[in-house]
């Protein structure tokens, strides 16, 4: 004989799985599609770099000494001038898209529409964060 509370709990778990499972499957399929598209656009070498380092580097089309670092996981895009970190940028899609599609989004916007990307971005100038010490 099953206790009523146990029975209700079991029903609840089954309903929860039935509701959540299709969402998980759709989410997983979207992640896989996004990874495949990113791999196709980047090519093997750049995709491997992303896998190994956790970020993708994109050269600034307008300033050859600068490069953007796009994190694969959530986080800010950072800008380096040579080896020096100079700026962080926050730009987000207005609709939710998979993580790898977000990496691709940043890359395309930087390469093909940099001025607009910088205009939209919420920027933080990091050259002012640690002022240079003069003298000694």
């Amino acid at each position, binding site marked *: 004989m099953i206790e009523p509370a146990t029975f209700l709990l079991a029903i609840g778990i089954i309903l929860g799985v039935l509701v959540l499972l299709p969402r998980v499957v*759709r989410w997983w*399929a*979207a*992640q*896989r*599609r*996004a990874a495949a*598209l990113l791999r196709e*656009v980047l*090519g093997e070498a750049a995709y491997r770099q992303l896998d190994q380092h956790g970020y993708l580097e994109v050269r600034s*089309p307008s300033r050859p000494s600068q490069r953007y670092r796009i994190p694969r996981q959530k986080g800010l895009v950072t800008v380096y001038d040579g080896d020096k970190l100079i700026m962080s940028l*926050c*730009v*987000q*899609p*207005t*609709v*939710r*898209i*998979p993580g790898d*599609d977000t990496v*691709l*989004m940043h*890359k*395309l*916007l930087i*390469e*093909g*529409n940099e001025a607009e*990307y910088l205009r*939209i*971005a*919420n920027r933080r100038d990091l050259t002012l964060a640690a002022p240079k010490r003069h003298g000694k």
Partner: protein
Amino acid sequence: MAKLRILSSAGDSIVEWDAARVQQGDPDALAAVREAERIFAEQRARGATAFVVAPDAPARRLDQFDPAAEHVVLVPRVAGG
């Protein structure tokens, strides 16, 4: 095959057409191009930006639909975070 890919929460959706068959006036290929052009205009009106992508080349912004472009990706509207 030429491709238009639209980034969305489900990953990306694709419209494909054969540019050579479009030139020959193939009805199915022409219908696919018209569908791609409709989606392109609709997404652009919503603030999306289109880019032509190619291996080992920087992306190029595309303001007008081009049926000859091999691979186009539509990125949804973005905002400062």
